[in-house]
């Protein structure tokens, strides 16, 4: 299917550099930050952000993974989904500033599920959201604190984020047509 490249490899690098700087700025040095990647592609993004925060200011940041399958609100609309792995960093999330990391912010339902999951896992001091791409069309009152790129899209279009860790290459594509 025909697609347009919205972010190439170097763009993704620059965008993540900027988000890491913004996190350091907004959190006064990221001392209390825990990065939680939302499975699947939020996980490598969270790891990359932690590497940059370490490189820029020598601040080690705990990284965890969050699988929200069991908290989805559309489970009974699809056939049963496999469950991914959830792992909090040692030290947990209580009293920390948790930054959820995901690839695409769309309806907001994934973030809603992640917030529900978080409240079952502990009590963070604050929760923020970082996304590589915000494509609009929110169905819930949710916004991101750190956005890599805002992309105006039509509902029928598809945004695909490819990452080296999961897909072998770094690229963000906008595909026309109807998703499955």
């Amino acid at each position, binding site marked *: 299917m025909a697609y347009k490249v919205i972010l190439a490899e170097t763009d993704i690098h620059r965008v993540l550099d900027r988000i890491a700087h913004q996190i350091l700025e907004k959190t006064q040095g990221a001392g209390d930050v825990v990065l939680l990647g939302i499975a699947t592609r939020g996980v490598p993004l969270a790891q990359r952000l932690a590497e940059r925060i370490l490189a820029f200011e020598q601040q080690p940041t705990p990284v965890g993974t969050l699988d929200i399958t069991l908290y989805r609100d559309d489970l009974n609309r699809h056939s*049963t989904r496999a469950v991914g792995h959830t792992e909090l960093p040692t030290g947990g999330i209580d009293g920390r500033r948790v930054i959820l990391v995901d690839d695409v912010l769309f309806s907001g339902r994934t973030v809603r599920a992640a917030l529900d999951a978080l409240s079952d896992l502990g009590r963070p001091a604050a929760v923020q959201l970082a996304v590589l791409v915000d494509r609009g069309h929110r169905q819930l009152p949710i916004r991101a604190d750190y956005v890599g790129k805002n992309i105006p899209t039509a509902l029928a279009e598809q945004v695909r984020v490819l990452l080296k860790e999961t897909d072998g290459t770094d690229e963000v594509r906008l595909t026309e047509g109807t998703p499955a």
Partner: protein
Amino acid sequence: MIKHLLSAADLDAPTATLIHDIAAEMATVAGREVKKLPTLRGRTVVNLFYEDSTRTRTSFEVAAKRLSADVVNFSAKGSSVEKGESLKDTAWTLQAMGADAVVIRHPASGAPNRLVNWVHGSVLNAGDGTHEHPTQALLDTYTMRSRLGTVAGLNVAIVGDVLHSRVARSNALLLHTLGAKVTLVGPPTLVPPVFETLTPDVRVGYDIDAVLPEADVVMMLRVQKERMNAAFFPSWHEYSRRYGLDAARVRRLPDHAIVMHPGPMNRGVEIAPDVADSPRSTIVEQVANGVSVRMACLYLLLGGRS
């Protein structure tokens, strides 16, 4: 995806492995502050128990509640069953109440297979007569995997009253599917030669001491007095001496081998108390794993589009 869980033979290796993988994630819930997931909110699970059971019924109940399902416990004792209601009429009643899943334990082999025709929801076999107990086999293989790393290639000795044991049957079937080698051991009256036809590679043996040095897993079974209508062995003392697992026999096992028992145990009959309480024993783990595995089964059967 599967709708019912009636027999361990219905599970292929990928499905069983998927259940194990999901169970491993479910197990983390037990260590959390909030031991609950919203996954099955609004679903109703009926525990329909025609036989006494503490561990399995409680295990299913905890599993369903951890997934936020509503649980109705229906035991035959003190119910309309004692007034003569048939399984079919009970099933229709449950159907009318909107059960999304029925977990059934019944003294008659095959009862869950009949129930499938009378309810719209999923049916989970929690033990039918001397036939099958698939979730027990799933939790036992899950326990083997978490203790020994894998199930494929293991030598598993199942020892005792195989004839009356749905646990043995379901385990032998699932272990075969997952690539383990099973040896059924016991007195010939309780392990008749016909069991050699259960799976293509199952073996039958009558000498426990010959089997132990090769075993990675020893699964001891309870002698089921309640299902026996004849004398299957001369005396309890003789049974215990020839087939009981005591400390001396445990020393014949390889160092890594584990000792399993589905419970309830007859301490001093099929298993010596010091063996049951030893670090090799997985008996308490099996109970904890039972909840995780049943959560995985309920999620798999009820989690998707109905």
